């Protein structure tokens, strides 16, 4: 479903995966309508910043621990990490332009 540039993170590998570089993680669920709206935008971001930005998704139904660790209590939520540190929390739908502005600050 997602673009091949988008990785899938789980509770098991999350910590390791966000350790290096700039990583944007999309917390979503199959039943979340706004998440479906955000998905193509996240795919496009992955494509456009390929090589500079790692883009990944976490299905919150299958991976309850990671959202709870980062106090995610609403979806869609995007978290942006740089070398393991949480830099940005973006809750709800945003336009691609707005997301690009936020990402640009960290690339």
């Amino acid at each position: 479903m997602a673009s091949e540039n988008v990785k899938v993170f789980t509770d098991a590998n999350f910590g390791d995966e966000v350790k290096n570089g700039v990583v944007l993680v999309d917390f979503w669920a199959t039943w979340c309508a706004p998440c479906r709206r955000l998905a193509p935008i996240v795919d496009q971001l992955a494509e456009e910043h390929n090589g500079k930005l790692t883009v990944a998704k976490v299905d919150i139904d299958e991976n309850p621990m990671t959202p709870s660790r980062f106090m995610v209590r609403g979806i869609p939520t995007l978290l942006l990490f740089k070398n393991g540190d949480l830099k940005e929390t973006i809750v709800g739908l945003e336009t691609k332009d707005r997301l690009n502005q936020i990402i640009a600050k960290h690339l």
Partner: protein
Amino acid sequence: MSTERQVIIIGSGPAGLTAALYAARANLKPLVIEGIEAGGQLMLTTMVENWPGYRDGIMGPDLMTELRAQAERFGAEIIQGDVSSVELSTRPFTVNVDKTHYTAQALIVATGASAKWLDLGVDKKLSGRGVSTCATCDGFFFKGLPVAVVGGGDTAMEEAIYLSKLATKVTVIHRRDELRASKVMQDKAFSTPNISFLWNKEVVDIKDVDQGKVTSLVLRDTQTGEKSEIDVDGVFIGIGHVPNTALFKGQLAMHDNGYLKTHGGSRTSVPGVFAAGDVQDHVYRQAVTAAGSGCMAAIDAERFLSGTLHESHQTASAHG
């Protein structure tokens, strides 16, 4: 890049897609720019029981999928994207989506309305941290926890009923002593054992920003001014909507509350620009009235393009 159209429709809720259906069937090859909240408010609802023709109800997202497919079947082109600006002072009108410019001889505005926040400042800070305007999106996070719903209309009751299946206890906080919701929704809410009501109370603060999550709400009694506090893990806001009209400020006439002014059917203050759905309706705000006004806007746009839309309402209806 520039693409000229006969009609562009901004928005893809019931109003926008019905306008697209009628415009497509009139061979106008409409372009629909769906917007960030594609599908509109119904995408965030569950069972819609008042859409005519579905005696057992239909799920909001399913209804929008059907409407979309129906509009596409007759040739409407629907694209993703969020309009960043419009230029309505000259025709063709220009609609900008990021760096792409679209032009059209007629425009139908169906940008709808979005959920209203409490205006406390703190509610936006705790958005995604326990404050939500979408029970179907975020209810999941409050399984086995107490939550509150703010509001007394149909939206608030629907949220409360949905959340009652997940949360231990749902407290509805309403600033008056009776609900505005329809009788059916009121009866459902009153008969749900774990939904309770706090009347004549308004939320004056949400705690706790420092902890980065919702822990309690500070309430004020609207009659006595007395303050109280209620412990909850989540608060869902269902106090109404604000029209999405920021794009049109200074270009289309609006009421004081921000809704677009229309006259003679769906006409706005700019000839050739029509409005449909919640963006111009602060009275009925139903899916079916939105769809009905979308139909009106498409017919008005078609007549405008063929030069048969006349300024007086009587003359226009004589053509009907």
